[in-house]
């Protein structure tokens, strides 16, 4: 009986999505996106679009292999942009009505009057939404796998990691949508509030990353200032030694030699004064950097704590990039960018350096899969538990 009921609900969910046309619209759009990716290529001169070539000095096969290019395009455009944003929003629009429709008056009586436990009924409905989102992602991923293989010459199996990752990412948002749909019984309210929750996660993630960047920047400055401070005593003692040397008149010193010595002594004294002033300045800077680091560290700890409780959508999606792109590849991109940026005029002196940006990337990549996925799944499990508790206890 369980299989019969589950299959019936799956078929019903398919009919519902089919009737809304959104499933097919999403699928067609996904196909167009993959086709667009397939149309773009790379050769020794630059980028190719169908049979046209756009000459680019910074983007050609001498700089990037076709396989890396397609992986890069898939991750940045296909995965981080299309799947993480547009396709997920379309999937949310398609599936947001599933729970409000389930609990709608006139419909829920029919469902609850069948020999099926409420928890199973709710979770099966929830799973159908994820299943159809999974189907969309699977179709897109298979098509992308073929494009990377045929056009880039790399059969990258790890690309299929996109399917569970996007499903996890979507489920983190959808569980909240399901809870809101259950509480409000309104598709529009559930959809809008879910998008608001998504925006909150985006803000939380952006804030944490920004604070982390500034915190590491402050740390970097502390290290630089400390290094300078550590070197200054040696420079001071060296200057003092030289002043002492220049203070002692040589035997049979003529006027010219004396004048040069005194000039050298004056120069060294000026250097010594400069070093001593730098010690004071650096000590003051160091104190300021430490204060700012402590403040940023406090904020970062707080934001990190809040983020630990909530789903980590960006990091979950970042796991694919971690898998497909090594730090060395990122280093090459960063070095090339740094080289190019060196020609441009720099802004204010306290801008984070590319070294700090790389360090941020390293910190983000060092976060464990359990922290990224495990705690997010725990959040989802908690939300689903609340949903089931409400659904089981409510009188319809």
């Amino acid at each position, binding site marked *: 009986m369980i299989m019969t009921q589950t299959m019936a609900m799956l078929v019903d969910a398919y009919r519902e999505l089919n009737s809304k046309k959104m499933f097919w619209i999403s699928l067609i759009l996904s196909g167009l996106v993959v086709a667009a990716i397939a149309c773009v290529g790379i050769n020794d001169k630059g980028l190719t679009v169908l049979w046209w070539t756009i000459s680019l000095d910074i983007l050609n096969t001498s700089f990037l292999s076709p396989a890396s290019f397609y992986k890069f395009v898939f991750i940045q455009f296909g995965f981080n942009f299309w799947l993480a944003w547009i396709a997920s929003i379309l999937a949310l629009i398609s599936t947001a009505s599933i729970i409000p429709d389930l609990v709608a008056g006139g419909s829920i009586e029919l469902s609850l*009057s069948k020999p099926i436990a409420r928890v199973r009924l709710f979770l099966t409905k929830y799973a159908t939404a994820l299943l159809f989102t999974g189907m969309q992602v699977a179709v897109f991923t298979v098509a992308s796998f073929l494009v990377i293989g045929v056009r880039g010459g790399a059969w990258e199996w790890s690309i299929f990691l996109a399917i569970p990752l996007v499903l996890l990412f979507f489920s983190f948002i959808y569980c909240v949508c399901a809870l809101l749909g259950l509480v409000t019984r309104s598709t529009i309210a559930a959809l809008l509030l879910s998008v608001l929750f998504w925006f909150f996660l985006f803000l939380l993630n952006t804030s944490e990353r920004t604070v982390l960047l500034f915190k590491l920047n402050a740390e970097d400055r502390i290290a630089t200032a400390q290094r300078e401070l550590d070197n200054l005593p040696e420079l001071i003692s060296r200057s003092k030694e030289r002043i002492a040397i220049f203070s002692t008149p040589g035997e049979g010193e003529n006027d010219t030699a004396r004048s040069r010595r005194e000039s050298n002594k004056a120069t060294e004294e000026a250097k010594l004064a400069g070093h001593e002033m730098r010690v004071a300045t650096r000590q003051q800077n160091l104190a300021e950097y430490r204060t700012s680091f402590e403040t940023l560290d406090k904020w970062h700890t707080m934001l990190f704590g809040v983020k630990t409780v909530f789903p980590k959508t960006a990091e979950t999606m970042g796991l694919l990039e971690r898998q497909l792109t090594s730090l060395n590849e990122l280093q090459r991109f960063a070095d090339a960018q740094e080289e190019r940026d060196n020609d441009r005029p720099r802004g204010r002196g306290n801008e984070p350096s590319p070294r700090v940006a790389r360090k941020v990337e390293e910190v983000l990549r060092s976060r464990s899969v359990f922290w990224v996925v495990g705690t997010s799944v725990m959040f989802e499990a908690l939300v689903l538990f609340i949903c089931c508790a409400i659904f089981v206890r409510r*009188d319809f």
Partner: protein
Amino acid sequence: MLSPTGVARLPTATADLALDLKDVDKSYAAGWFKRGVHALRGIDMHVGRGEVFGLLGPNGAGKSTLIKILMTVIAPTRAQGTMLGRRIGDKSTLARVGYLPEHHRFPDYLTGRQVVEFYGAMSGVTRRDRKQRAAHLLDFVGMAKWADTKVRGYSKGMRQRVGIAQALVNDPELVLLDEPTDGVDPVGRRDIRQMCQTLKDRGKTVFLNSHLLSELEMICDRVAILVQGRVASQGTIDSLTTHRQRYEIEVASDDSNVDTGLRGALSVWLKPDASGSLTGQLQTGESIDVRLDQPHAPAMVKVATADAAKVQPLLDSIRAARLTLRAVRPIRPSLEDLFMEAVTDPTTGKTLAPGAKEDA
């Protein structure tokens, strides 16, 4: 199940009862902006297998709440008893029960056939069986021609018919129909009545909740009247109406002496009353009520008995007083009379306000 006279009698053994409800109670807790409501106040109800049972009551009496409790849509505050031999709330029993909710809403992207098959699958009916039954049931409810049309194109009556078909797709032993004739035209109502009769003939128990008293009267073996969350009365329509049956004796009022004539003829039974009304009782206790004050209407003597023999002495006396008898009629109250009596406050004589009683 049926007695030789065709009157259904309630079986006493629990195994013979489709529904055996004891002390079913439901209270809705008070919220921030609403007061608590005591929807059901200890319902005791018994429905025998194979009978058509009618549940009636005014709006807000708790009829739908009771059905929803049986179908596990609502959790009771307190409930004892069984449905098809299993405790109330047991999910597995629902595989043997069919249900048509009052304001049902089928997915409008499905056809009538798909609706019946989908709910069949949800009841655990195998693919082959539900295909066969869907075709048969859609024909049974007169929807074979529209079976493959989307529900969104159906009229209210067509939706009700498909609703009945889906309630029967699991070949249930007990069918609960909540307002099945709501929004259905007279032809449809007759068809639904016939369907209920057919189901009864096939040994199914039919539990009907309806406002249409005349229809319930036509098909129900037994009824229960629910008023403000309590069972006001239940039993066969005959048993409920027997003690309310009476005889009406119509006397021509053309004669100017009809007033004094009747008073004299019935003086043995009538009691003097300060208010001037003519009431009395037979030796066996049944009440007599004489109406003389209706202008342009015959004088009327009402005797609260179903026994014709007990009326004969009164008729003899009226004839002996040389008054003209125009009619002698046995009067059997209708279900509507019973209903109105149940929903009328005996102290004020006014009908009770609709809705459940709020908790104090």
